[in-house]
Each structure stands twice: as C-alpha cells, then as structure tokens.
C-alpha cells in the first residue's frame, strides 16, 4: 500500500499547526486551520523560489523555520483563545463536512485539476529554473500559467520530496479546501454568537455544506473554485457580518490572502471586499488599511506572472469586433446564471427584503451588521462575472457550459450567509427585551457593543 497520501496529510497538519495555534490559541481549531496555513507557507516558499531561485525544498525549509519562529513570538504575546475553540466545537464543525467528502473516492480525472493545478505543482516541484521556463512557455498556454500558485503549492511541496502521484494531489487539495470550509463554518458560528446555540450551529453547518451545492466534485476533485470561494466567504462573514470586523483581523486576513492567491477571480473579489471594508471601517482607516495587504499579495503574483511571460486567456485573447454579439452573450450569460443561482438569489432577496423592512431592530439585537454589505459584495462579484463573460475571448456557450457552475459558488455562499443571518434573526427572541437563548459559550465582549454605529 502506498503511504504517500497519508504522510502528505500528516506533513500538512504538522507544518501548519504551530502558526495556526498561535493565531487561534485553540489546539482543536488549529488542527482544522493547519492545512490552510501549511498551504500558505508552501505558497510563500514557491514565490520566494521563483523570485530568488533555487530548489523548492530549500525554500520550504526556510519558510517553515521562519513560521516556527513567528509562531513562537506570537504565542508569547498576551492573547486569549478564540471563542468556540473547544474539542466539541471542532467536532461540530468537522463531522458534518465529512459525508460529502466521500467524493474523494472519485477517480482523480478532472480535466482542470490535471491541466492546471497539478501541472503547475509539477513544474514548481522541479525548482525555479524549470518553473520559470515553463510558466513563460507558449506550449503551456492551455494550462493558464498566470493562475496564482496557492492550490498547487502544497502539492508541489509534497512532490518535491516524493514521486508525483495523482491520488496524493487529490487528497492534499481536498484537505486544504475542507480546512477553508471549516473556517467558514466557524466564522458563521462566531458571528451568530447571540443566537441560540442549536440554531447557530445548524445555520453555520448549512452554510458550510452549501459549498457542494453546484458541483459535487468541487471540494475533492482537485479544483480551486471551492477553496477560494469558501475562504472568501469566510472573510466576508468576519469583515462584513460581524459587529467589530477588525477586532481579530488575522484569520480573515489569512482567508483573504488565500482567496487572492488561489484564482484570478479571487483577487478581483478580494479587491471589491477590501473597498467595502474600507468604507465600512472608515472611522479607523489605519486598521482598515490591513485589508489591502492580501490585495498586495495577489497583485504581487500578477506582476510576477507577467514578468515571467505568463499569458492570460482573458486579457490577451483575441476578442475582435463582437459588438453585435454582446446582446446574445448577455442573454446566454443571464440564462445560465439563472439556471444555477436564480432561484436561490430570488429566495434570498425576498428574505432580505422582508427582513430589512420588518426585522431590522431584531437584527441589531442579534449583533449582526446590516445585510446590505453582503449584498454589495455579492452584487459586485456578480457584475464582475457578467462583465468577464461579456468581454472574454472564449466561445460563450462552451465557456458557460464548462465554468458557470463553479464560478458562481461565491454567489451561492454569500446568499447562504445572508439567509443564515435572517433566519437567525427570525428565530431570535424579542427585540425589545434581551432574549435568553441557549448559549454554549460566554458572549464575546466586543459583540456587546453592537450598536448601530458598529453595524453600519
């Protein structure tokens, strides 16, 4: 029996755990976050390798040593464990996500996994010179070599030590993605801190399971869409749904960096979110400026990819004069979006409208920010999506058929977050008197001040 996949999983957990623990101060939650942190460290190693040169294992060793030092320094600073950090909370997050992960038994055959993410992992694993040459090679334009390295980097780290193996790649990708989904579930639960524990956990788990809504193989098939979407949605929850978005900024910033370094549309979505957070936290612009750090990280990759002659199918495709086709492209795009997320969007919009008209007071009492922020983020991403389909160079019918299910995942997740917020409000107690819901954790002090100013 090949033990490479098991060893790869263990390596990811061990590599990411110290920094994850220093961020969360909970060993159980840190175990859930560790794969995502390990993937981020691998990404830093890949970037350093491409810029400075040398073999990947050398940079992995350097980055791991630096991360261990950083974790030691962080854990010596005064801090408190994050709420909902017990073993039972970690199990409540992880266990419901396991059944759909049975899809890991699907053979690793997804086209994009092989042609994009695992191919990138392959050339990263062979060191800087080979990777640079391959990124700029016209022979590999089909592989979208301009795509960011996050989804490939942890696989490259493993493959730089052992012989490439697709099962290992599939398992590593699934583990990192599930780690992002687990953080989304955790952050929804934390945002619903004033709601009955049973309701809050049920809603948080439902939002996490929504990751599988459009594509059953999204998490385990080796693709990056579920990874960046879950990370982005988690950051949105922390920064736009909570009452005090920048009180604990490390986890949301980490998730934003993951989204920006996973896919090009992730970076564009992160730019929009950074704008919204800046507007929301305009009273403290110095702290709000933190959300632009992930944008810088994603932008740095975009510049590096250009310098290495990577070509983008979106910005460098031959569009020609297609003015007459724009209307047809628009109609086809809207029809495809309607088929995938139309019903959900209408349902979520009806709920949001009713809530905004009649339940605003209860929402404030529940400690949630105004729902308009979520819809602004969702609307921005939808507009970018439609604009990309209209202006992109590909045959629109083929393009929609091969991508619309995957790229609408952030829309689904943000709609689910909006719905979860309003359902929590509807299940909440009387807005005129403090309700006494069943709580499984002391209330966060920061949430006690969830006044209108904090819920702009």
């Amino acid at each position: 029996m090949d033990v490479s996949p098991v060893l790869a999983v263990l390596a990811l957990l061990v590599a990411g755990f110290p920094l994850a623990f220093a961020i969360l101060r909970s060993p159980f939650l840190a175990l859930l976050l560790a794969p995502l942190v390990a993937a981020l460290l691998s990404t830093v190693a890949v970037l350093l390798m491409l810029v400075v040169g040398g073999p990947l294992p050398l940079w992995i060793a350097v980055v791991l040593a630096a991360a261990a030092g950083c974790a030691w320094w962080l854990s010596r600073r005064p801090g408190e464990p994050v709420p909902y950090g017990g073993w039972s909370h970690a199990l409540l997050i992880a266990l419901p996500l396991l059944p759909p992960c049975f899809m890991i038994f699907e053979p690793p055959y997804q086209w994009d996994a092989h042609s994009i993410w695992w191919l990138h992992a392959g050339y990263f694993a062979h060191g800087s010179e080979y990777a640079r040459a391959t990124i700029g090679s016209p022979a590999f334009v089909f592989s979208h070599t301009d795509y960011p390295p996050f989804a490939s980097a942890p696989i490259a780290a493993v493959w730089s030590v052992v012989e490439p193996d697709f099962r290992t790649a599939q398992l590593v990708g699934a583990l990192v993605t599930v780690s992002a989904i687990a953080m989304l579930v955790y952050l929804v639960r934390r945002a619903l801190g004033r709601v009955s524990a049973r309701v809050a956990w049920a809603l948080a788990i439902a939002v996490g399971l929504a990751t599988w809504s459009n594509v059953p193989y999204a998490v385990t098939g080796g693709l990056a869409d579920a990874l960046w979407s879950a990370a982005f949605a988690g950051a949105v929850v922390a920064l736009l749904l909570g009452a005090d978005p920048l009180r604990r900024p490390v986890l949301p910033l980490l998730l934003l960096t993951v989204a920006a370094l996973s896919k090009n549309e992730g970076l564009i979505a992160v730019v929009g979110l950074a704008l919204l957070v800046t507007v929301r936290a305009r009273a403290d612009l110095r702290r709000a400026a933190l959300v632009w750090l992930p944008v810088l990280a994603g932008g740095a990759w975009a510049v590096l990819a250009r310098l290495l002659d990577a070509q983008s199918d979106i910005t460098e495709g031959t569009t020609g004069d297609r003015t007459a086709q724009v209307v047809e492209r628009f109609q086809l795009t809207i029809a495809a979006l309607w088929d995938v997320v139309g019903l959900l969007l209408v349902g979520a919009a009806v709920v949001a409208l009713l809530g905004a008209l009649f339940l605003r007071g209860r929402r404030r009492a529940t400690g949630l920010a105004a729902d308009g922020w979520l819809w602004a983020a969702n609307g921005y991403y939808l507009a970018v999506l439609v604009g990309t389909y209209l202006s992109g160079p590909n045959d629109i019918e083929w393009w929609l058929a091969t991508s619309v299910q995957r790229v609408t995942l952030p829309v689904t997740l943000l709609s689910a977050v909006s719905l979860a917020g309003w359902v929590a409000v509807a299940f909440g107690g009387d807005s005129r008197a403090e309700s006494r819901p069943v709580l499984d954790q002391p209330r966060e002090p920061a949430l006690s001040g969830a006044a209108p100013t904090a819920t702009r």
Partner: protein
Amino acid sequence: MTTTRHPDKTTIVRIVVALVGVGCLLLTVQGAVRATGRGIALMSDREHDLPATQHQVDLETLWRQFVEQVPPGSRISLAPARTNKDLWHQRLSELAALRGCVVVQGTPWDYSVSVAAVQRKRPTSAGVRLVVRKVD
C-alpha cells in the same frame, strides 16, 4: 365571550422569513447530500463511474511507464497518437512537466514519446501503453 388573538405583523414576517430562509438553505444543502450518495456509491463499486476509472487507470499506467522509460530532464518529442490525438498530446505534455522534461519541436530530442491503444483485458485494466523511442 371569547376573543381571538391574531399574531402581529412581525410574528408573521418572522415565520415567513424562517420558512423561506430554511427552504432556500435546504436547497443549497442538497448538493452535499448528492455528493455523499455518489461518494458512497464510488467507494463501494469501483466501476460506478467506469469512464472516469478507465481514464485514471490509463493515465496512471502512462505515468508509471513514463517514469520507468524516460529519465528526468530529457528532451522529448511528442508523436501524435492514433486515437484521441489532442487528449494524449496534452496529457503527455503534462506528464513531461511532472518529470521535469522539456518538450521540443524540430530541435534535437532524446526520446520520442507517443500513446498506443491496447485491448482492455478487464473493464478496469489499462487501454493504452506508452511508446518510447530513444534517439540513436
């Protein structure tokens, strides 16, 4: 005389929001239920998705033979396969990158690599083999 107490407007809205909201969330969770069912079927029956399994077996066979026959860092020329030319051309390019090889066109090469179809002995056995020719 008895009086009937009607629920107030807010209560009705809360019920509607809860019902529609939970309904929509159940809609989004359906995918996870489907994924669970499909995953269990795949776990218990290797031939549940035979085309996918065959593709995986073919690709892993080619990769194993590539590792056995082509040294890392070689310059290779891709000869067109008789069937599924585009598929195997792209897949062989990917395997070359995984092996650290350089795919060349026209310039001197160390190995010519192609794919040939073979009869499957069983539904889940390989349907292809790698054809490698070393330059003299």
